[in-house]
């Protein structure tokens, strides 16, 4: 019986001209968006590779110079574009693409794509995630809004009932039928993406299991939408009302709730301004150990401590270059200050996340969006991981450079390290978080999504009409 209901529904859907037009438009948009995104993806990765190589060459060919000079010359690390960003670009556009690593300062990632674009791009971009999150639910609405109301309006409900069909079978049949177009589009998109991804040379950290989980997340998101749309159709008396109510839900879930959440999060847990943030760090730095200033209070304290430890009277008698040692200690001290302030930012974001989770009560879009970005490694946490890895590398680089001076020179000496020193610095490596780490981070989002699915599913079966 369920199969017959599905067959009937699919036939009706196929007869509908609006559906055909919409289906092909969405398919065209999807193919176009995947094509454009994959082009961008390959060109960004090529640029990334060449920039990374160039940076290393520039670093290694600095010639003979003082290591601290090399520390100021610094190095750039570039954020790689990860394979699943092809499907969900997440917040990538709003985070910088590279970080300049230098002595004394922790710089933030710079040059986000959004800052180079016009306000037009804030409407949204033709990317697969835009279509997956915003447009495909519209297809579900288009197919499902009159699922039940049409039977009442066309007075066919009695005919169906007279066939002896059980309520739950009718619901299941209609549910599956309403999902078929969405399943076709989504599966097709993932197939194309899978083919593209497996053909990209050296696609590095791509994992099929992440790909599969991502597919599953979208499916659950669409299941929830189908539940809600059929529920609305089943409790509405007219198709028009069902359609308007379904659209209200779509706008509320996909547009209004995220914006409201963002506004509440910002006003409740605001970030400091760039100015405040730098000012606070500068203030703390000025109160502590300064590698360049032997006369400052903390420098004097360190000197006393080191002299005592080595049981000598003057820094000249130490077995290493004391000024490089002080420089390193100051770097470590400053790195701690940075870590403290960046931790405050992270905590602030954690608190903001709780607002997003609370508002997920009115929008299944929120947990689905966070999950998808996270699995695709394009969420804020992934960016934080990258900038933390860059900071670790900066600290190690400073230790390497100061260590070189400390070992190879004496205090007061104008030390010049040989030209081949720089290639001894290990290269920057960044490994994105693994799938299991990502899944652990997102347990609550999964729970919220499953709750949405079960509650709306339960309601749909409970409101099984009796006419």
């Amino acid at each position: 019986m369920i199969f017959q209901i599905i067959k009937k529904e699919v036939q009706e859907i196929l007869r509908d001209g609006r559906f055909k037009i919409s289906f092909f438009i969405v398919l065209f948009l999807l193919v176009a968006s995947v094509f454009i995104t994959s082009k961008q993806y390959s060109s960004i990765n090529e640029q990334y590779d060449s920039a990374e190589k160039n940076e290393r060459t520039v670093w290694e060919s600095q010639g003979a110079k003082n290591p601290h000079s090399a520390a100021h010359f610094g190095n750039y690390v570039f954020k790689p574009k990860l394979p699943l960003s092809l499907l969900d670009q997440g917040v990538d556009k709003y985070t910088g693409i590279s970080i300049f690593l230098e002595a004394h300062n922790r710089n933030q990632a710079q040059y986000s794509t959004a800052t180079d674009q016009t306000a037009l791009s804030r409407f949204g971009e033709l990317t697969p995630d835009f279509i997956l999150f915003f447009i495909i639910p519209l297809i579900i609405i288009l197919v499902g809004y009159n699922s039940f109301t049409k039977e009442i309006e066309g007075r066919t409900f009695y005919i169906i009932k007279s066939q002896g069909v059980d309520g739950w079978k009718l619901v299941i049949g209609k549910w599956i039928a309403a999902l078929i177009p969405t399943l076709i589009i989504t599966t097709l998109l993932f197939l194309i993406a899978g083919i593209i991804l497996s053909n990209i040379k050296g696609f590095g950290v791509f994992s099929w299991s992440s790909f599969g989980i991502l597919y599953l997340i979208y499916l659950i998101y669409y299941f929830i939408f189908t539940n809600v749309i059929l529920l609305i159709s089943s409790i509405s008396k007219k198709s028009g009302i069902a359609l308007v109510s379904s659209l209200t839900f779509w706008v509320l879930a996909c547009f209004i709730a995220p914006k409201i959440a963002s506004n509440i999060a910002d006003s409740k847990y605001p970030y400091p301004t760039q100015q405040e943030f730098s000012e606070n760090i500068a203030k703390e730095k000025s109160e502590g150990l300064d590698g360049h200033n032997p006369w400052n209070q903390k420098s004097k304290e360190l000197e006393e401590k080191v002299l005592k430890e080595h049981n000598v009277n003057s820094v000249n008698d130490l077995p290493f270059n004391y000024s490089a040692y002080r420089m390193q200690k100051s770097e470590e001290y400053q790195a701690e200050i940075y870590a403290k302030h960046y931790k405050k930012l992270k905590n602030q974001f954690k608190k903001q996340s709780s607002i997003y989770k609370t508002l997920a009560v009115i929008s299944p879009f929120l947990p689905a969006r966070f999950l998808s970005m996270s699995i695709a490694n394009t969420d804020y946490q992934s960016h934080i991981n990258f900038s933390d890895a860059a900071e670790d590398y900066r600290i190690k680089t400073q230790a390497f450079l100061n260590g070189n001076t400390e070992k190879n020179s004496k205090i007061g000496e104008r030390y010049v390290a040989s030209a081949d020193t720089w290639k001894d610095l290990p290269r920057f490596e960044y490994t994105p978080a693994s799938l299991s780490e990502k899944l652990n981070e997102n347990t609550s989002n999964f729970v919220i999504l499953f709750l949405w699915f079960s509650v709306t599913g339960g309601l749909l079966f409970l409101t099984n009409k009796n006419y």
Partner: protein
Amino acid sequence: MFLYNFKYELKSLLRSKWLFLLSTILLIVMLFAGYNGKQKVNKRIEDFSKITAQTEERDAVMLHVLDSLEKGLEVNMSNNLLPNNPMNVGYRYPKVAALQPKPLTFISVGQSDLFTHTVQPKIYGDNFSYNYSELSSPVQLLFGSFDIAFVIIYILPLIIIAFSYNILSKEKEYGSIKLLASQPISIYSWLLQKVTFRFFWLTLITSVVLLITFIINGFDFGDNMGAFLSLIMITTAYILFWFAIVLAINIFIGNSAKNAVSLLGIWVFVILIIPATVSQLANLAYPIPSRTKMLAEVRNVKKEIAEKQDKILDNYLRDHPEYASTGKEINYSFWHRYIASQNLAEAELKPLLASYTEQIENQQSWIENWQYISPAVIVQQSFNNLAGTSSAHYQEYKKQVVAFSVKWKDFFTPLLYKSQPFRKKMYKNLPMFEYQQPKIASMTFNAFIILFFSALILTFSWLFFNKKSEKGTLIN
């Protein structure tokens, strides 16, 4: 007849509680949006006051120290920090180059969440290294803000669609259209009157709701009446555009549910697909120059000039100019060389950076021309322009900050070359930053373009109506 129609519509609207529901929804969302916008503006003003107060406090100390130095008194400050050294003033006592909010900033967040509004250009360092991006969670940037512009651009058309998608089709479905057709009025005039009537009420309600929101947010109507009227004009034209679409669809398609689906399709196209496509096409026509590539090129240039700079200046002091003077005397010859080394770097990087800026500007101007393809984009650009939060405003801000930083450097450089110390009396002549608003497209022109869209749709719908009437497919 018009009067009858007017009375009938008003009665039926009041009976269905349409007006009440509409006014309530609009008032709630608009007040919330206005509150959000105002909060952001208040924070911006507060941040500016904080930084100005800090700067003034610092300057007061500097003037006090200068006064003591000029009187030959002892001062409690490290020698390398003394403000009689022009370089110290240029580095440690920078002025604030701020982009102040406009009276209408609270209506549209625009690009303001991406950029910082206060930069303090200093005498060391190159213009290239200024960071204009604001510290914010990228998730917030991704989701955007619930502001008045969002309510008008996204939600208002949906309200129009939700309440008017079936104005003609309903008559058909109830069978009352035959009765209407027998009246001494053309159905097109009747429909036009009905739509005009709804347009009139919605415009009135929106204007009143906006007025209330503006009053609550303490908007100064006396000085900014023009800007407020521009906002109302653009909004009215936009409302008219959507009513024209509703009318056309009611004529083209004759079934309520089909009307709603088609109208929604148009909403998605006008508001989501067209802007997204224009944005993508702009990337194809004028690809945004890759910043990754730019950084690689900057690095190559910097490496090459480092050797030349080394000839001018010791590399340690180039990295740490603050340690150039340790004694009481200002080491002028060092600073001459320092400026020369900085100028060298700037001159070498200038053509490279200029080529990147030019490409970005080309893309932006391309988009500006293409904005006229969708009324939603025109409204967004107009609101951002009124609010001073458009891309052009921030592009101009960056340019003016760079120009100001040159002015700031130019103030101190002659002192160095003449080996003159900085004196207290020079303080009042220090350059100050004042943001000059960029030229923006005329609001009347923008409103005219939206009206043109509406006129076009109305003409087509009229032609189609006549065709349908001739065929007799309008009623049956």
